[in-house]
């Protein structure tokens, strides 16, 4: 089987590009894969199936969705919330009417009116202010013959959005932790937080919780690694919260080897977010490979992490208090960190092993590529046999046959 593979690829700075770079060698050991050059909107000749990696970033994924809309195929849905992508492919291309229509189709007249408000600059862009309330997945789902997703959360939301085709839940593959010397940036417990620094990563809440924990554990260091989102001023946030930068170490965007070294040098990894776009976190998966205990928000994919691997913080009124308790526990109990870390490493090896993930991909692709033809052949065979003995369509007997076919996932 030959698969046309649409995805951002390195050197693009994208989590999904990193993901594909990790997955492709294992996939190529199992099936033929033709990676489609960025911007090309048709699948190469001779390919049996097209596989489209879709995320919420229009810069990385708009060309892929253009190709999908020309030729339906299997979609790897990395985010469920696609409002930003949709906006990029409509408003970003001066197609305001397209945006209005899509908002109306999924959210009725209210959606259209809100979209007007956005286009007229009367209200802030919904893809920034309220994307989770208006996820707009249909734009992609209506062209997908099957979905590969990383969480039950996205599967359930896709079903709720009306997607009726096959959905395979395939874990995010894990990188093998490279052999790097851990970079320790403090003497006590180091709490590492990796990724873009912004409000939806709950950085203000993390700063407040860390300040409380440091009263008991003054040698605790909070390490923030990643670029800062435009509009998020870390120093100002600290001032507003009445906090100083004691115990705070800040590094901007770092390359892969520095990232691993800093992560390896951390004792605890924190990866919070609210609202969730239905995404998986490459940072958390890296942390699992390193055998680190993690603290996450109790949302989306993060909620599905086992309780002995991750402490989960609901994004509610008690968020800071819960987060504080979690960090106090992990700062004070090396034995707990050790057990959770061991479980994390086991999880990475068992569920996120790239060979295992590639097997699941191939199973999903093989099921879909010839699945419809096989279903048709089975149905033709069975219905011809039924017709031969006088059982015609729409009879009780035909319905019974159909029911039993469905029971065993045939036809």
């Amino acid at each position: 089987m030959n698969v046309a593979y649409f995805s951002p690829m390195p050197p693009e700075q994208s989590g999904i590009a990193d993901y594909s770079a990790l997955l492709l060698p294992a996939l190529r050991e199992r099936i033929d894969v033709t990676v489609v050059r960025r911007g090309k909107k048709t699948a190469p000749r001779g390919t049996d199936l097209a596989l489209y990696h879709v995320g919420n970033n229009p810069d990385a994924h708009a060309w892929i969705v253009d190709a999908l809309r020309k030729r339906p195929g299997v979609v790897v849905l990395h985010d469920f919330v696609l409002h930003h992508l949709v906006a990029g492919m409509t408003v970003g291309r001066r197609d305001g009417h397209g945006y209005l229509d899509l908002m109306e189709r999924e959210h009725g007249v209210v959606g259209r009116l809100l979209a007007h408000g956005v286009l007229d600059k009367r209200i802030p862009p919904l893809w920034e202010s309220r994307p989770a309330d208006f996820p707009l997945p249909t734009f992609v789902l209506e062209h997908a013959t099957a979905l590969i997703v990383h969480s039950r959360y996205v599967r359930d939301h896709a079903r709720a959005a009306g997607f009726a085709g096959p959905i395979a839940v395939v874990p995010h593959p894990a990188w093998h932790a490279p052999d790097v010397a851990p970079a320790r940036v403090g003497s006590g417990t180091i709490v590492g937080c990796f990724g873009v620094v912004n409000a939806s990563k709950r950085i203000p809440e993390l700063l407040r919780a860390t300040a409380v924990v440091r009263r008991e554990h003054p040698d605790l260091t909070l390490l923030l690694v990643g670029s800062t989102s435009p509009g998020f001023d870390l120093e100002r946030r600290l001032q507003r919260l009445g906090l100083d930068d004691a115990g705070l170490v800040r590094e901007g965007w770092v390359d892969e080897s520095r990232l691993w070294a800093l992560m390896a040098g951390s004792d605890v990894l924190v990866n919070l977010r609210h609202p969730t776009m239905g995404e998986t976190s490459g940072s958390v998966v890296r942390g699992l490979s390193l055998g680190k205990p993690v603290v996450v928000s109790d949302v989306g994919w993060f909620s599905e992490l086992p309780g002995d691997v991750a402490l989960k913080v609901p994004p509610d009124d008690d968020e800071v208090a819960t987060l504080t308790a979690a960090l106090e526990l992990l700062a004070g109990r090396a034995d707990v960190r050790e057990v959770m870390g061991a479980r994390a490493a086991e999880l990475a090896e068992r569920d996120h092993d790239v060979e295992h993930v590639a097997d699941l991909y191939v199973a999903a692709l093989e099921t879909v590529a010839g699945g419809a033809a096989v279903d048709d052949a089975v149905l033709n065979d069975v219905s011809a046999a039924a017709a031969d003995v006088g059982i015609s369509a729409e009879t009780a007997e035909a319905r019974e046959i159909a029911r039993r076919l469905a029971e065993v996932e045939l036809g």
Partner: protein
Amino acid sequence: MKIAVCRPQVPFARGGAEIFTDRLVDELRARGHDADLVSVPFKWYPGTRVLTQAFLWRMLDLEEADGQRIDLVVATKFPSYVVRHPEKRVWLVHQFRQAYELDGTELGQFGDSPDDRAIRRKVQALDRVALGEASRLFAISQNVANRVEASTGLTAEVLPHPPQALEYRCENYGDFVLSVNRLDRAKRIDLLIEAAASDGSLEIVIAGDGPDRERLERLARERGLNGRARFTGRIGESELADLYARCLAVYYAPVDEDYGMVPLEAFLSEKPVLTTTDAGGPLEVVSDGSTGLVVTPDVAEIARALGWLREHRDEAATYGRAGKAIATEVTWDRAIGRLLA
């Protein structure tokens, strides 16, 4: 209890599964159950035939027979376990191996086309549903249980069953090595013929019939084994028991066999078994230097091992007796007790 034992039937073929299920019905009846065999023809090619033929089982209504409730069904090998029943117990002989470990080998069935790949996945999906419905899932060997777990995530209890009832006995450790098998490529009887060709004093008797017989007989002729290799074809129970009783050892080296009754039959005749490191199920009872010899699937290794047994008949007898102690532990009383518990 009224019990339906389900097995697919390949017309005009008879092998271990047929012997097993016939015997199971007899043993259930001997314990006072009202047991009967339910059999449906099975053809697994071409194309989607494997799925439509499997689906025939789904259309059966085995909840009642002639107005009387059937309390329990025992399904055995693919696709008999696709049958519906509220008390479906699966005593798994094997899945459709072409969809699993044989895929991509010369024994596989499915090619690289999208349709073939999808059929294979449909068989796997069918297994997940049909085996997942079972109220109890047993496997005839650890090897079969391991395969089920790897392919479906389901855990099967290992429940071996005794071999066919023959008049097992040991008369002597004669000069010939016995092979008992259906003659197909997966049984690797050609390795035994080549081993005999490399050791001029080795005599072999090949019992059984099958599609590979002509090729094997030709190979034996080409290697000049006239008089040292005898093909018996299909033989009766009495003749088989007699061959077991008089042979030096039993050769049994299939590729990743489900379980294999032959080692237990050899053991009940107090004969050691020569098998290979990749034989699968037989390795659960054949231990190197204890109940037989285990070598790599290599002609020279096989010839050397059989030569060693010929030169060490006391050890051969010791291994055979150790095997008998294992084989006599596998009884119908125990098996049926667990099956119906």
